[in-house]
């Protein structure tokens, strides 16, 4: 359950026939996810895209172990998911809702470490290390609401990294910041992922963002969602906002994904 047994398999996350029905068996029954299957290998960056209302957040909550699926299984590091695994990080869309405004940034980032019984002396060092990994130095004594939106989301990311998870889930993490900050944070996540060798699954409705970040993209159909296609993104590991986004491959992928996400509209 804790995922403490290190498996030799390279598959970090396996989703099989996942189905989610709300209010099952009642008049108000609503199928958010029909059937979704995919796997994520260690070190991969996978984005999940789909039109709004495709149950993306529902899917992510099921992957995190916050919501039990109606049918199907989620396997994390070889163990069937039963609650939130210890080696999993989750960054929510809205930092103002996920950060604790009554705790300083240092204590926000240190909270999961304290919960894991890590002594205070070691905690301080690891909090600083996590904040520096996201480009924030010297904000430990400040409160989240004293920082800009982009910086607050960095604190939330640092908090998720502080306990060194094997898998980082992100739910539209850049939807609440302005365009410039968004580019900065995208590059930050790519850099962090490379530095720490972490596996990332990110949910977004932004196709360009998905292509820019991903190794693979899981495209969901509208409601109730199924996996339409899994698209490989062979753009290499060195990516820059200007060059990558204007490359031939990028534009070809973009056209392909647009046709998948909004078919038969024009």
């Amino acid at each position: 359950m804790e995922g403490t047994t290190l498996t030799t398999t390279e598959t970090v996350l396996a989703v099989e026939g996942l189905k989610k029905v709300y209010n099952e068996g009642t008049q108000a029954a609503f199928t958010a996810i029909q059937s979704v299957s995919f796997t994520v290998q260690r070190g991969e960056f996978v984005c999940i895209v789909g039109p709004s209302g495709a149950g993306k957040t529902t899917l992510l909550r099921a992957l995190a172990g916050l919501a039990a699926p109606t049918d199907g299984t989620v396997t994390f590091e070889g163990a069937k998911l039963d609650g939130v695994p210890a080696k999993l990080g989750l960054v929510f869309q809205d930092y103002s809702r996920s950060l604790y405004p009554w705790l300083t940034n240092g204590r926000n980032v240190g909270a999961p470490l304290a919960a894991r019984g890590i002594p205070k002396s070691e905690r301080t060092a690891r909090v600083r290390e996590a904040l520096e990994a996201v480009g924030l130095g010297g904000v430990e004594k400040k409160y989240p609401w004293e920082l800009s939106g982009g910086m607050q989301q960095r604190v939330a990311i640092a908090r998720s990294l502080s306990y060194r998870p094997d898998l980082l889930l992100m739910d539209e993490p850049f939807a609440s910041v302005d365009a410039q900050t968004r580019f900065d944070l995208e590059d930050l996540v790519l850099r962090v992922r490379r530095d720490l060798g972490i596996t990332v699954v990110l949910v977004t409705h932004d196709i360009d963002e998905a292509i820019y970040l991903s190794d693979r993209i899981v495209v969901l159909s509208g409601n109730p969602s199924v996996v339409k296609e899994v698209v490989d993104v062979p753009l290499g590991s060195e990516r820059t906002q200007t060059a990558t986004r204007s490359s031939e491959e990028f534009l070809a992928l973009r056209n392909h994904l647009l046709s998948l996400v909004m078919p038969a509209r024009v």
Partner: protein
Amino acid sequence: MSRLVTSSLSVTRPARRTRGGTVVLRRVLTAVWLPIVLLAVWWFASANSTSPFFQPLQLILSQTWDQWVTQGAWTNAVASVRNLLIGYAAGGILGIAFGSLLWRSLRLRQAANPIVYFLYVLPAPALLPAMIAIFGIGPMRQIALITFGAIWPTLLNALDGMRGIDSVKFDTAKVLRIGGWRRYFTIVLPGAAPQIAAGLRASLTVSIILMVVSEMVASNAGIGFFILQAQASFAIIKMWTGILVLAILGTVLNYIFVVVEHAVLRWYYRSRALGS
């Protein structure tokens, strides 16, 4: 709840953080000019009064000093404040504790809901005869009455505040593996703290009222006892000195409350001032 909250002194509203001497001076003047004018009017209008019910303010003030400091009536104030603080502290702690229990358990909440509201709307002074029957005459039943009255505003506000915490905060806690008592002290209590403070403030007002009321029935000490006894022996000035002491006590306690609240909830008032 807001009914009780707004009934407390409005001069002690959260002040905006401003810097610079002139700004502070202007703020102080804005707050005190009316009381000063009213006191002056009272002072001069009553100066030559000969009515036994409308005595000169100067006389009341000098009598207050005589009665409460020189002649030792301050022991009444000590007895009152002791009962008040014990009863209020017990009521506040029990209110938060029961509020937390009701928040934790849906079944308990559903079962207790009618009882809580039934007891909440029951005017606490009506229980005074029962308290005398149970605890006899002495400080115990005064403390018990204050505690009983102080529980409800804090309990209901604590419950409401805890239920109002954003579910994302709890999802986050689950992912970060913050659970049990750690979750209670790191997320639940601080998250509900602003509303718990509003409840404690209302409980303080109720406690002061009950302190006076409980001293007016079958009692031999306290400010309420002093006021009633003075009135019964037609010592009108003496009665007014008791009321004055009571008003000063209430103001001081409210002021202390606000100072402590602003220190504890510094994050709350500062983040609100920043508009986030």
